[in-house]
């Protein structure tokens, strides 16, 4: 135990390039056993490349990986596991069709190369692992049936079974309530006491300040700052991450008092996902909607847009009830929707930027006999590229060649082109760098000033406070609370969430 506690894990001078572009340039980091370390950084800062190098997915171009008193120039995934490096990804990588016990035990069998499974041994392995971290979960339940918080604990139990010495947790708290986060932190304290070096990857500054002892901040593949957690201030962390002095001041435009309603949602119900949800949005108003993962917030947004089934209730746009369960009816009524997952739902990745820009309402570009009016199409493309400042040399390049922020602008533009009355944005700035984020929020603000209404679904509380006139919190499929402009406060909102 004593040796474990003094052992150090980490990397020295790691360089990694992908086809000539540097992802990591000389990154060093060291975590002691029994320490909780935080890696903070924006998207594209090299966080995930670093994790992939330590877990054997990528081989570094140069540099050393140190695990206790051994060093490696590179690791294979199997070696990484054997040496005690474990990663818990955001989706936990569990097999939903297997039971809790099977999920915990399976990797152990694989590591030992044993081909025969025994039910008794499986249960034994699972019980031991769960006891070790002090958790009580029914080991015979299928993983598909248990809560997200429990899944996370199972992933931790599985890791401890494999003799974990260094545990990476990628955004572990995204889907958890405040109570569950507390429970998770207790478990982290347990494994910390056993001498495991734990690495938290997170952007929730409150939480990392609470649990982490040390911190490394990455930007553009380099360590910009590191040290003891207690020496860092909140503002300092985000400034180091972005390299900018980012202001989080409110930019929501002033809302004219009016009794007009662009949209009224009345008693929208689909059991058990959401029930009796009612709200309305005024012209030019930006309404925020938040809730934990699995609270029903995404389903609600998609229900209004006709992509999620509605059992009962009404959606009234400009005084007329619209046909539910139909996206084309929603589109016709003037509702637009930017889905949460840009890569799989928002974009036609391999297609050109231009084709992506015009993907909604292609029929507008029809001249006689179904012919495509290519010159009008090209004009529209050029206009949107200019309007939203999409950085590209050629609109015919595939949209996958753009950065996250520019890709998100493409998705936004394709809907803005329809000039909707109500634009629903689900996670509008997920995976977007801080500069682009600011610009996207400004685009929202400008359109709202022109009278477009917005429903912004997000779990980024500071962002909601920055841009919204009003925020509703969804809990278990119902509106648990509504916050008016004056009541918007980060601490209060976080508290209501969990």
């Amino acid at each position, binding site marked *: 135990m004593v040796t474990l506690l003094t052992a150090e894990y980490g990397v020295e001078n790691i360089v990694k390039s992908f086809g000539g*572009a540097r992802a990591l340039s000389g990154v060093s980091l060291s975590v002691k056993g029994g320490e909780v370390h935080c890696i903070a950084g924006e998207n594209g800062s090299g966080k995930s490349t670093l994790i992939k190098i330590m877990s054997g997915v990528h081989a570094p171009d140069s540099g050393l990986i140190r695990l206790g008193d051994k060093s490696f120039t590179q690791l294979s995934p199997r070696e990484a596991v054997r040496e005690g490096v474990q990663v818990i990804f955001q989706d936990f990588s569990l097999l939903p069709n297997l039971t809790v016990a099977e999920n915990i035990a399976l990797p152990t069998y694989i590591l030992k190369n044993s081909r025969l499974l025994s039910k008794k041994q499986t249960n034994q392995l699972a019980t031991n692992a769960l006891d070790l971290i002090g958790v009580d979960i029914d080991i015979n339940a299928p993983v598909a049936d248990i809560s997200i918080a429990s899944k996370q604990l199972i992933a931790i139990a599985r890791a401890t079974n494999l003799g974990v010495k260094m545990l990476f947790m990628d955004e572990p708290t995204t889907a958890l309530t405040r109570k569950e986060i507390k429970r998770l932190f207790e478990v982290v304290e347990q494994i910390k006491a056993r001498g495991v070096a734990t690495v938290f990857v997170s952007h929730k500054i409150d939480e990392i300040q609470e649990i982490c002892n040390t911190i490394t901040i990455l930007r553009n593949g380099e360590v910009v700052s590191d040290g003891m957690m207690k020496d860092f201030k909140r503002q300092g962390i985000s400034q180091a991450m972005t390299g900018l002095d980012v202001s989080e001041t409110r930019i929501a435009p002033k809302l004219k008092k009016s009794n007009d309603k662009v949209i009224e949602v009345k008693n929208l119900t689909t059991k058990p996902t959401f029930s009796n949800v009612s709200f309305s949005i005024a012209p030019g108003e930006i309404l925020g909607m938040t809730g934990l993962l699995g609270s029903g917030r995404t389903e609600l947004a998609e229900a209004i847009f006709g992509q999620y089934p509605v059992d009962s209730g009404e959606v009234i746009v400009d005084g007329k009830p619209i046909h539910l369960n139909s996206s084309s009816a929603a589109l016709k009524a003037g509702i637009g929707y930017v889905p949460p997952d840009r890569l799989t739902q928002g974009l036609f990745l391999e297609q050109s930027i231009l084709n992506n820009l015009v993907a909604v309402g292609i029929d507008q570009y029809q001249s006689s006999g179904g012919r*495509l009016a290519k010159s009008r199409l090209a004009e529209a493309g050029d206009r949107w590229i200019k309007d939203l400042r999409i950085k590209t040399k050629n609109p015919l390049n595939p949209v996958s060649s753009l950065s996250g922020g520019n890709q998100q602008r493409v998705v936004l533009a394709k809907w803005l082109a329809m000039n909707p009355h109500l634009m629903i944005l689900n996670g509008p700035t997920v995976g977007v760098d801080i500069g682009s984020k600011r610009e996207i929020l400004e685009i929202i603000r400008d359109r709202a000033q022109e009278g477009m209404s917005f429903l912004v679904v997000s779990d980024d509380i500071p962002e909601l406070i920055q841009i919204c006139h009003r925020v509703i919190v969804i809990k278990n499929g119902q509106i648990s609370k509504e916050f008016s402009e004056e009541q918007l406060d980060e601490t209060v909102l976080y508290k209501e969430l969990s």
Partner: protein
Amino acid sequence: MNERFSKFNTGLLADRKITQLMIFTALTFFILSYVSKDIFFTSANFISMSYQIPEIAILSIALMLSMLTGGIDLSIVSISNAAALVASWVMTTKMGDSENLSNKWIIIACVLGTVVGVLAGAVNSILIARLNVTPILATLATMTLFNGIAIGMTNGESVSGLPEQFMRVGNGTFFGIPTPFVLMIFIAIAVGFLINRTTLGLKVFLVGTNRKAAQYSVMGDRKVIAWVYLISGLLSSLAGLIIASRTSAASPDFGSSYILLAIVIVVLGGVNPNGGFGTVTGVILATAVLQMVASGFNALRYSQFFYLAAQGGVLIFVMILNVVLERRRVNRSIAKSLRS
């Protein structure tokens, strides 16, 4: 400005594929002409090829459409035979014992044949677009169904003895060019226009690239897919009529190996089997390559069985090549996005 956008659906990637394919075609041509000067490089051989290419090219174009949406239509050959049988049956019944038939009835017979194609396509459309059956299973089922109906109705026998005028279409020339070849060019241009110059065409590429994103973009993805299988049925029936006219017969089991050949051609022609990318030009070039290889094998007196093996080999080679090129492209684009 317009010129910049003229090649716009298919993008730069497909253009590169066409160039590769043209080089490949030319190479095949020169190698075969060189090794078999007296049999392959003869006008008789070229004339015979230009009668054989059109039917398989049209079937391949039909198949390309469904593959552009990320699906597949295995029933094209069955549809083609069914259409040919119906048209032939109408003609022979109307002819009775006489040698000739009025043009009016020939046209009616052909129209009925295409109606059969469209109806069969509609069955596929309903299964795939409406009932969400996986395309490969839906069309496997309809392939067997249409084929079974055809065999049942004809007792497995072929219908032959079609009227003179009808045969003249499949065996004649139009300004010196074999009529089927002219028809093929016409169909290729029409389909090229459809996919590159119409809103439906653009939707086909987008649906094929990402069906989910198409749903979220409210472009009526089901309607797009329904159209594709309908048109696939229509084109298949046209191929069937050309075959009947060339061979003066229609039979329920004609060209059973054509479906595999068509898949080889479409993939060789640069159509992405996952959907979203492909060109008519590519498919036509690929047809030419394979037909030349087939003729070359004949000319060199290699057995037909080796030709089958060569087809399989070509398919495997092209797919490996695609995977390798794709990996290189992905690596490059990762590098690019990191650099920016």
